[in-house]
């Protein structure tokens, strides 16, 4: 165990936790905005897969990482329009619609990969950007201030999402249509437009999450996300629909995963119980969810389609 508590290993573990947490954080923040407006999106994983593939394909074809990020964002927006039309205007059941989006994303990204790429080919990864002065701080400099721009963006979005939801008229509208859409409607707030906008933002961030994942790895494989989008949805519940709580959940999940991997590498966790230890991130997160989230209620109108009739 003493091997773990060395500065180099601890720094590497925190850096790993930040890397692992980044896609979850982006997707969860987007899902938080959507859920606060009353829309559950179980299709996050599908959007992440689609954006990850198209982002990867863009780098493969053009070598332009930032174009790849823009493409991922565009994929998120397109999927947002699709999901918004289905759930807001056609008032379809959100759970089933989200699963449909997930299955579409899983299948279409797989198909496109086979048709356009075939065998996995590595592409360049997002470079780390050192923040002057801060990057040299012992222990925290490397894990926190030598990361990619998408990681900085993910963490910067935490206070921005808080401000959006709590300090702007648009945020007030989001919260009101998520709690009592009939009352919001009676006060002149367009429930449809507000929810549609929230879905668009949510899916855009899911798109960025896909880009963050694939550009961090530098390679794509079918079903690359392995269910990350569903965990992102769970982290919204974990975080009690609050950006800071969501960030805490993403970091906890990443940190437990990173610690388990370090302990396996150091032999602290023996190979014989390796598979069991792999369940630790889920167990810790669920345990924390049980302890923390019982005190907080979900948005009252979550999953409920709005209709004036």
């Amino acid at each position, binding site marked *: 165990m003493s091997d773990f508590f060395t500065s180099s290993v601890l720094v*590497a573990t925190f850096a790993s936790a930040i890397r692992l947490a980044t896609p979850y954080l982006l997707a969860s923040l987007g899902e938080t905005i959507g859920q606060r407006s009353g829309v559950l999106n179980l299709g996050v994983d599908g959007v992440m897969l689609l954006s990850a593939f198209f982002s990867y394909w863009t780098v493969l074809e053009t070598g332009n990482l930032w174009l790849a990020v823009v493409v991922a964002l565009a994929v998120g927006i397109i999927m947002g329009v699709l999901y918004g039309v289905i759930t807001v205007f056609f008032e379809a059941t959100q759970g089933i619609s989200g699963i449909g989006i997930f299955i579409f994303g899983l299948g279409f990204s797989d198909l496109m990969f086979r048709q356009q790429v075939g065998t*996995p080919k590595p592409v360049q990864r997002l470079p780390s950007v050192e923040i002057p002065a801060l990057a040299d701080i012992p222990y925290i400099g490397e894990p926190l201030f030598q990361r990619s721009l998408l990681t900085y963006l993910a963490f910067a979005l935490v206070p921005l999402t808080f401000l959006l939801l709590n300090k702007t008229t648009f945020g007030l509208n989001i919260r009101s249509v998520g709690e009592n859409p009939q009352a919001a409607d009676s006060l002149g707030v367009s429930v449809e437009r507000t929810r549609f906008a929230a879905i668009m933002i949510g899916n855009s961030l899911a798109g960025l999450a896909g880009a963050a994942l694939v550009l961090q790895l*530098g390679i794509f494989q079918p079903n690359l996300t392995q269910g990350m989008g569903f965990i992102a949805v769970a982290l919204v519940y974990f975080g009690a629909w609050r950006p800071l709580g969501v960030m805490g959940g993403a970091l906890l999940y990443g940190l437990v995963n990173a610690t388990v991997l370090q302990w396996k590498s150091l032999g602290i966790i023996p190979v014989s119980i390796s598979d069991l230890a792999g369940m630790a991130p889920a167990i810790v997160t669920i345990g924390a969810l049980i302890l923390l989230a019982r005190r907080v209620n979900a948005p009252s109108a979550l999953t409920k389609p709005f209709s004036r009739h």
Partner: protein
Amino acid sequence: MLGVLALGAAACGSDDSSGGGGALTMAIVAPSASDDLAFSQSMVDSVNALERDITLQVTDGTFIVEDAAAAIRGYAEDGVDVIVAHGTQFGASLAEIAPDFPDTTFIWGTATDTQGLDNVFAYAPAADEGGYVNGVVAAAISETGVIGVVGPVEAGDAVAYINGFVTAAEAGGATVNVTYTGSFGDVALAAEAAEAHLANNADVLTGTAQMVVGAVGVASDAGVPWFGTQSNQTSLDPNLVVASQVYHWEFILEEMLELRDNGTKGGQAFEINLANGGLIIEFNDGFDLSDDVKAAAEAAIEGIKDGSIDTGA
């Protein structure tokens, strides 16, 4: 999500006398992508390498066993002559399906027995052998004396490969850190497992299963040599992949098909290994390996073939 590919395959050797079999319909049901540079691709490449007239269909990406079972039964109902169930986890499904189609030959692996079914051939790789050879080379080129291994779950040929690798590398004086991520498909976790090994001073990495593409990316970024298995992984980094143990199933597949031609539809288990040519260590010419180390690898191969080396598996 099932990916279904229909491939017209292996036109070479269409003369019946050379292949000995005549036109044949085959299907492969595989758990990951057919071009995964690992387990599934090894079987697709091997069937395509057979010198027979074969019409091949592939259903890959069957992560869910029930999906695989549906595909296997579907091919059998369609009258496909030979169906390859490429995954240990498909065994229980095969035990239910195979007796319903006595004229169909099922080929199942990795497995060491046929479950008593007379229309099932089983196959397995002696993956420990290639693991051992890779371990000899890895220990020789490691400067820190620490080597990292990224595995999926502790099962099947992954365990055999890793055990063989660890035996040889430790005999060569290296410390080997093994991480089973718990997943065959989680590329991100495999990448972070590789990062953890690097943080713990590893300067050589290896791994097995389709998720290792993430770990190879980490090795590439760090400039750390990588050893592959199942398929040739040189294309992932032409400068840093030292060698790959490649599964050539075609040698035992041909034996099975010849048995089928002669009326035996199953009931036997086969193994690919270094001695029968089913396992081949493919060195990457793009990696500058010294003559001494190459000689040590060749000696290990010969020692395993003649039985003088115990891989520890």
